[in-house]
């Protein structure tokens, strides 16, 4: 086994990096792949709560880097998905506690034992971002169909190219099909035309994401939600399968409308 390192980044905060990392990791692990997630957001860790593993942290990334524990001791195994592991970020330190070469060394040590190493990048374009992309084989940029998120995505895509980690792939998150339909939200094609990189996933805005995050249970493990399906599709594409993109912009039929009335946020 020789793991691929995939870094998920965005520039702007709050667009869904951590949720995407958790869900893609869970979907890959459900598919039987051996996956380890690294939370590179030192000082603002969150991947642990999104994955529901916050009560099991003993050691963290900085403990490994500073030699207080062995790499294996900092890896938390997800009991629901035995192929999924997490290396949490330190909460009481800052980004400078880790260097880009520390990240490369750490990932190289993990590579023989895994299929995928997913790195959750912090927001911003500083040290934390550079730490996160240093070990990457593939960089995924996540954005929302909004002016500020698209602008920051463009900036980060340029920086990924400058670091010779490109071309980045794109996830567009929190698409509201109803707003796109009436021309009040950038459509997938608009964002693609502006950013001019390859699309790897589109995710609809889905209340179930908040609900599953409340429970610490990745939504990609929920068989019924649309967002969960979208994350599973991304995992398939990472695995090299050809999966058509969901048609989020088509008009709901009568039954679609009815089911939304009965089960809001579902369908």
């Amino acid at each position, binding site marked *: 086994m020789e793991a691929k390192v995939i870094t998920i980044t965005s520039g702007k905060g709050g667009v869904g990096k951590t949720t995407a990392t958790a869900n893609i990791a869970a979907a890959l692990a459900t598919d039987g792949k051996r996956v380890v997630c690294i939370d590179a957001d030192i000082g603002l860790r969150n991947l642990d709560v999104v994955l529901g593993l916050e009560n099991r942290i003993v050691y963290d990334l900085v403990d490994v880097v500073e030699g207080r524990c062995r790499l294996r001791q900092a890896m938390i195994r997800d009991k629901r998905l035995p192929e999924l592991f997490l290396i949490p970020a330190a909460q009481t330190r800052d980004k400078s506690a880790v260097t880009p070469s520390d990240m490369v060394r750490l990932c190289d040590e993990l590579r023989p034992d895994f299929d995928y190493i997913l790195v959750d990048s912090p927001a911003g374009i500083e040290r934390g971002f550079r730490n996160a992309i240093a070990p990457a084989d593939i960089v995924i940029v996540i954005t929302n169909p909004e002016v500020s998120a698209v602008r920051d995505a*463009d900036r980060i895509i*340029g920086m990924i190219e400058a670091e010779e980690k490109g071309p980045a792939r794109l996830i567009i998150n929190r698409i509201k099909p109803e707003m796109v339909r009436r021309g009040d939200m950038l459509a997938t094609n608009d964002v693609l035309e*502006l950013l001019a990189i390859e699309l790897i996933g589109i995710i609809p805005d889905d209340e179930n994401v908040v609900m599953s995050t409340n429970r610490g249970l990745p939504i990609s493990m929920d068989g019924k939600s649309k967002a969960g399906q979208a994350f599973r599709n991304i995992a398939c594409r990472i695995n090299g399968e050809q999966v058509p993109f969901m048609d989020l912009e088509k008009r709901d039929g009568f039954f679609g409308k009815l089911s939304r009335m009965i089960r809001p946020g579902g369908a």
Partner: protein
Amino acid sequence: MSSLWDRITGRDRRSASQAKERLKLVLIHDRTDLSPATMQSLKDDLITVISRHVSIDPEAVRIEMSQEGREQRLIADIPIRPAQRRRAG
């Protein structure tokens, strides 16, 4: 909601298309670090240099930024005035 009249006359510009147009311009600026003011002074300099060699109409000169994938390109369209024909005889 906009009125039917606004829609017919095209005065109703949906917010998504405004977002796209605004982003196009912002991204050009972000990617190239060329402000509209810099573009103007570039255009003025080009006109000066080219006029030294060939007769052009400064009003007709167009300098535009075009995007090909993630590559920005500066396109200059400079029509040349026809050469004054010497009258025979």
